[in-house]
């Protein structure tokens, strides 16, 4: 990295020198020194970034520090700053049945949703890549779940999972079971722990699939056709071309998308809040919904903050991996 930065600096200096040289040649009377030009650039640079920096430090960095403090205090909503309680919130949480349930839910939810989105996303991208007719229309339709506000589209799913009028149950009974003479089923989709978890996972897949498909599609379009021609000459079939050309070349982009999606799936709030509020029996609570329920349901701000901070280690790992990919990408393109 350092070597690269030096090279970039050198290159930058060379350009700056050339610019300064040209400037001297063109406007001989104006002797603006190289050093002061560089200082002016630095001042401008800092000044331009200041508003963004200000906003982010005040409303991202500072609240983050507050979250750290809350998690080691017994603060309640609207009740001052509380007193220091050390790691009590964390140890209490680890002993708490509903927190352990939430931890398990989050892992099940994130792993299955991200895996499904990755597999289905690659499949859909491959299909879209081959689709010749109505390309723009189909691509536009596929992206719709991403554009519609999640809180509102999840209401549609809530209606589809209704205990009495569910269209899914209706279809199963009338189209599949009825004709072969079976008694109609009564399914309370959001009423049993396993089905409710499956339901929130399905809605998350629905919401996240467009992002995977479109990003992978961008990666597919970047693969040179010569690679496929060469593979074909070597006798590779459909699967061979996928495993030996498409998949290896897609891997970097897929890794970035998976990391990205892992954070936002893990930190999901909207779908669970609208669909189940964490129920039944806390079987679908995620960190975000549990922390919301603790802070505003039972007014335990410190406990709530401690819950949301349990997301932090996951975030750190993902950010570290992302930066790793990003820098590798930068070096490759440099």
């Amino acid at each position, binding site marked *: 990295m350092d070597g690269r930065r030096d090279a970039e600096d050198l290159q930058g200096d060379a350009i700056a020198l050339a610019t300064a040289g040209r400037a001297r040649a063109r406007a001989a009377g104006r002797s603006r020194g190289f050093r002061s030009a560089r200082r002016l650039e630095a001042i401008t640079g800092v000044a331009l970034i200041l508003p963004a920096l200000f906003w982010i430090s005040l409303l991202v960095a500072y609240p983050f520090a507050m979250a750290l403090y809350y998690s080691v205090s017994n603060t309640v909503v609207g009740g001052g700053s509380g007193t220091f309680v050390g790691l009590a919130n964390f140890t209490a949480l680890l002993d708490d049945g509903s927190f352990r349930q939430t931890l398990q839910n989050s892992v099940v939810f994130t792993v299955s949703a991200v895996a499904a989105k990755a597999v289905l996303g690659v499949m859909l991208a491959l299909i879209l890549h081959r689709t010749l*007719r109505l390309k723009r229309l189909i691509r536009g339709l596929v992206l719709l779940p*991403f554009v519609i506000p999640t809180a509102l589209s999840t209401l549609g799913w809530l209606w589809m999972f209704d205990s009495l009028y569910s269209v899914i149950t209706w279809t199963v009974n009338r189209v599949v079971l009825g004709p072969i003479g079976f008694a109609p089923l009564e399914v309370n989709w959001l009423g049993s722990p396993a089905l409710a978890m499956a339901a929130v996972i399905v809605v998350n897949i629905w919401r996240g699939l467009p992002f995977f498909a479109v990003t992978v599609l*961008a990666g597919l379009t970047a693969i040179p056709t010569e690679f496929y021609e060469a593979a074909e000459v070597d006798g590779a079939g459909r699967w061979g071309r996928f495993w030996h050309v498409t998949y290896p070349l897609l891997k970097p982009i897929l890794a970035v998308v998976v990391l990205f999606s892992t954070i936002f799936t893990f930190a999901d709030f909207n779908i669970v809040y609208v669909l189940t509020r964490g129920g039944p029996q806390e079987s679908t609570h995620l960190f975000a919904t549990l922390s919301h329920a603790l802070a505003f349901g039972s007014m335990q701000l410190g406990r709530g903050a401690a819950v*949301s901070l349990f*997301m932090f280690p996951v975030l750190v790992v993902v950010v570290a991996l992302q930066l790793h990919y990003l820098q590798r990408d930068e070096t490759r393109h440099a």
Partner: protein
Amino acid sequence: MPRVRRGGAFRLFVVDHVGLVPFLLFILFPIYFMVVTAFKTDRELYDLQAIPFWIRDGVSLGHFHHLFFKTNFWRWLFNSLVVSFVTMTVSVAISIFAAYSLARLRFPGARSFGIGVFITYLVPPTLLFLPLTQIVNWLGLIDSLWALVLTYPTFLIPFCTWLLLGYFKVVPREIEECALVDGCGRLGVLFRIVLPIAVPGIVCAMLFAFTLAWNEFLYALTFTSASVTKTVTVGVAAEMIRGDVFHWGGIMAGAVTGALPVVVMYVFFLDYYVVGLTAGSVKG
């Protein structure tokens, strides 16, 4: 993808497109079903003998009538519009300066700022909403749209800066240097050279900022409680669902109408959305 073409044109068409059917069904059915539900009469909606896939008793505007005249829906829509527009404008303006600074100017710490913006972009709002509630409380902004105007840029600025950085980096340095030599200041270069070249990037950042602000749910849910300060997502998803009786027709009418503005925008600017979505994770 070049393949050895076998069989007739029809067979190829079927082979290429048949895989799409289950995907399109999965993606589009919930949306279609929401729209259909919103236009049904209550009698048909709660009739288990009726086929749910289409409208049997004729299109009814009853649920929309209720939504428009018996709830605060217009107010919620107006709040969403104001908040999204203001936060979009502020965030894109701030991000233009920040992105140009990071893309072009060399100053101590520039690289760390760049990484900082990227990390902020990855911090989910669910990690920050509790302390932000406290800050909003201190400022006396609970139940005010200002709370949202203040907090939405925390996720919009990192996103827009990141997006614009990619656009600014590909503006040829040579053009800028010529302008500098000709006596144009840095801000002059930014406004007269870089911005006109990067117009697609700015449109993209504006569209995404507006959509993200419009779709936001958690902050709006946490910072507002009076009906008149709610945004459309919270108004429909939290206020229309209360108690044990669900008025499904009205809820679907609210959800469909609340999503309409961003969907219309999306229809007109489809290609920008595709670019913005991919630029989020893939550079440039």
